[in-house]
């Protein structure tokens, strides 16, 4: 907690803490209450009562091994005095965010005064292993070791830097990284409920830190549980697509490696034409590697839907990688094996979801995502006969290249051209992409990003007039019905 103790009483061993949301001193009056003073003696007696009640409360806290009061308001001197007298440390003026965090960690509710029954047992106490002052730089802080009731252990990350502004930037970057890690374990598949469920399972912080094998196993299980609804079944892929098996054999030098499969494109939103368009494009990114057959998949899909005649070419990028954080990242290999699973008929747009982004899918950084998407969108555009779609596809495909262009601009000249040619040649020859970068990026995040960008672009392009107004726009209330006009 980034503030100092109001009063600190050293306490060893486990201790209990109470959250206090209000002034603890019993008030003589309250809003709407009149306090009538009949005599001086009565007035003094009331004050004495108030003071002795405060003392009794502190004694009671002490008996219950409460050694820390965390107050969101400033307490009166008399409270601090008795707290010190009975060995209770006090921290005041906690922000509502801090109070909420402590409540979440410890699961306790704020202390409610008991009225007249002062001797009732105090149940809402948080357990802490220690509570001590801590000097960080030149600032004194309160360090409390709460015992967590959540699935995570509360901990603090102390960022050091020469200036506050830099620390704020670092903190923001760290939050970004956390958000990314949470997104990393999201996936895109057919049913929204499935995704939500899977996401929840994998979103706990533990999962991020637990070993890869467990995560992978869990992911596999999740998939197996959903074979009825998922058209792409990991087991089937393993056995029925020769390309994948081949890759496996090539890469399995590392026995713990786990073959993952994800696709570039996914389900449409239904509400947005453009997203559907994108999906459609992505769906049709297929190329013509005829040697890859997946009969069972085709069979599945045929069962699934038969009405429309859209060509559904799925590209599955098989990536073999371990998600160990900070370990063996260099060993990560990525093989791109595009394959086509024949023609299948899909009745409605939403049913494109037979391809999914698996939870935890990553690609090496350095423009590979963009170049892959670019390649397949272009490929799709060639296949498609309608010129309009071809033109727009090419625009999107070229726009994607602006990212690697910007990335390679800072280094040597023409290095983008080199990178582009190398990557495209490798794709054409069905060879692994030449990877030099060590970093990875989340495919799910990239997917969300592309969708957001296309959404935004469509919106901007749909605007035909910008009207400048001189006064701030007022939010129009909902109850302004048409009758008002």
């Amino acid at each position: 907690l980034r503030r100092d103790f109001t009063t600190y009483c050293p306490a060893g061993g486990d201790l209990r803490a109470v959250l206090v949301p209000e002034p603890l001193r019993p008030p003589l009056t309250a809003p709407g209450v009149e306090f009538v003073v009949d005599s001086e003696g009565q007035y003094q007696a009331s004050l004495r009562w108030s003071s002795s009640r405060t003392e009794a409360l502190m004694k009671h806290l002490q008996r219950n091994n409460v050694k820390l009061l965390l107050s969101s308001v400033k307490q009166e001197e008399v409270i601090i005095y008795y707290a010190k007298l009975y060995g209770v440390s006090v921290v005041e003026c906690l922000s509502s965010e801090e109070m909420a965090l402590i409540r979440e960690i410890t699961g306790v509710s704020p202390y409610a005064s008991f009225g007249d029954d002062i001797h009732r047992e105090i149940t809402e106490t948080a357990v802490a292993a220690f509570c001590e002052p801590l000097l960080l730089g030149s600032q004194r802080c309160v360090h409390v070791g709460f015992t967590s009731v959540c699935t995570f252990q509360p901990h603090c990350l102390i960022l050091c830097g020469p200036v506050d502004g830099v620390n704020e930037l670092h903190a923001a970057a760290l939050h970004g990284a956390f958000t990314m890690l949470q997104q990393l374990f999201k996936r895109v598949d057919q049913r929204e409920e499935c995704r939500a469920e899977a996401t929840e399972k994998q979103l706990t912080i533990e999962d991020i830190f637990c070993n890869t094998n467990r995560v992978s196993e869990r992911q596999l299980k999740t998939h197996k549980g959903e074979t009825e609804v998922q058209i792409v079944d990991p087991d089937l892929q393993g056995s029925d697509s020769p390309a994948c098996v081949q890759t496996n054999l090539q890469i399995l030098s590392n026995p713990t490696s786990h073959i993952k499969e994800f696709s570039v494109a996914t389900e449409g939103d239904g509400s947005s034409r453009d997203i559907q368009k994108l999906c459609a494009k992505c769906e049709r990114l297929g190329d013509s590697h005829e040697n890859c057959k997946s009969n069972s998949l085709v069979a599945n899909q045929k069962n699934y839907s038969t009405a429309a005649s859209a060509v559904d070419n799925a590209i599955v990028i098989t990536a073999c990688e371990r998600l160990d954080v900070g370990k063996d990242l260099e060993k990560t290999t990525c093989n791109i094996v595009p394959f086509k699973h024949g023609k299948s008929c899909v009745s409605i747009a939403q049913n494109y979801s037979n391809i999914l982004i698996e939870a935890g899918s990553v690609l090496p950084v350095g423009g590979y995502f963009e170049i892959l998407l670019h390649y397949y969108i272009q490929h799709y555009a060639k296949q498609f006969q309608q010129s309009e779609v071809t033109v727009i596809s090419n625009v999107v495909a070229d726009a994607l290249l602006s990212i690697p262009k910007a990335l390679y601009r800072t280094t040597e000249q023409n290095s983008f051209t080199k990178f582009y040619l190398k990557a495209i040649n490798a794709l054409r020859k069905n060879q692994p992409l030449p990877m030099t970068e060590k970093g990875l990026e989340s495919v799910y995040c990239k997917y969300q990003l592309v969708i957001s960008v296309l959404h935004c672009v469509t919106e901007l392009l749909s605007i035909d007039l910008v009207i400048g107004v001189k006064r701030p726009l007022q939010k129009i209330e909902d109850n302004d019905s048409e009758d008002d006009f």
Partner: protein
Amino acid sequence: MSRLEAKKPPLFISEPLTKDAVSQSLSLLSGLLKSCYGPAGRLKQLHNGVGGYVCTTSQSSAIFSRLSVSHPILRVLTASVQNHVSRFSDCGLFTAILCCSLIENFKSLSIASCTVIKISKHLLSLCMDYLKSEVCGCRVSVDFCSLETLRCLVHSILTSKPACMLNKPEVDHLTTLILKAFMFTVPCHVETNAVLGKCIIVPVKGRRVLDSTVLPGVLIETPEIQLAKPLTVKRSCSNMIKIALFCVSMSGDLFNPEEGTMTVHHGISLEMSELNQLLNVGKQLVSDEVGLVVCQKVIHPSLKQYLKENHIVAVDRAGLSLMEPLSQMTGSKPIGSIHSVSPSSYGSLKDVCIESFASKHFVHLIPNDTVVCSLILCNRNETAWDELKRACETAEHVLQLTIKEPLALLGGGCTETHLASYIRHKSCSLSTSTFKDIDCSQTQYQLVADGFCRSLESVACSLNHDDGEILTDVVYGHCWFVPSGFPSVSNLSDLVSKCGCGINGNSGNLNWRLLQGQFGSPIIQGCPKEPSGKVADFLTLDCFAAKCSGLQVALETANLILDLSYVIEDQN
């Protein structure tokens, strides 16, 4: 209806370091700071032009807190230095000058800033490893069994602040006082958690510095106490003085009611009732054999009179800042209620007496255990007193840091030149795999290392404010100052007697060379040696922790500034 003003577009500066305005401001700031550095530093007078308070100083903390820096890049620099000073008190100017110098030197290299940053980080790690290693030739260990090294540390701090206007006897006197005060704050009986006490600086302006003194315990200014009458304080059975410390007001003012209404019947006086309660507290204090009552706020005159009649000394308006040391020193708990006073809140004192300095009268509370002491600090005028107070606080802080890490670095520019020769030597003998790891060529590394060393050396050079020459020797890598006015043809070895820190004497063939003007042709040399013995009685020493942090902060901040390719400033 409020009128809306059109928003100004943000100010957008690309490649800020290449802009003339930034370069000029940077070199202006750099020049200003360099001119302040060291015992011979020039003073700066800061005032706002419409009268009022004037500050004469050469300390970075005073300059940066008053100087308004306009350019965002320079604000990053000053904020960094201020953060460093808030943690270590010392080496602020060193940090700022080194940072400016690093920026200027690195900027002039035609190497991509990301490469410069990588190399300079590696250089910093070389420096830090060396400073933390046993073989380090520019540090000395501090022996707390003798006062000698501690005296050198404090002495160096006081002499490096010329705006204190101290002569030699005054520096010696204050050095002794500061050390004495520090010794008071070290607890005699250390249990598991040793906590240092506190030294309270009591201002007495308009007196000679030599009138300054240190007293154990706390002094509370009391204008009303008459000196003529000797103070008679009631003592309890064990010959101790019981003290009651109140943090709540005892003025008899009405207790502030909460929301809601309070109806008082005719003829009832709540004020009288409050006063009666105060007198009840007074009665309890008398029966509890309390000898001294100290109140943070105001005591009602009637209660004061009552206490006086009962031979209890009452001191009020002690102020919030004294409450913690008072509580620590006497073992009393500040009482926050006048309705029930627990006897367990009382503390004890050895003695109470009256002291007076200049025209001020104080009640002097003398504790049994002297972890709290008062430094009565005198200086002729207010500005010089303020500067002296900052210097004393710095010295106190440096001693605290040194007790944690009992090391000191050689001062007088010697650490800088020694470190520079170490880096020059080390950077020639790095393996090719190092360059591969950093992703740079050996030439690039050499260029950046040279810029780094020149920056360190320029800090040492800024100790010199007259026209004299600055030399460095090839054996120890120390810094030597040649007074101005000698013909350039004379033999260098005839002109110097001892190095900047005073550890090395002129023992013949040390192979001196000029520090300035040699730029661009670094001499290939061996690893600088550790000094063999020491020549002077007094070494110039710097705080180890503060200087290490200063080096790190300067380099990290310089890297941060070099990395800025755009500044976007909101002008609304």
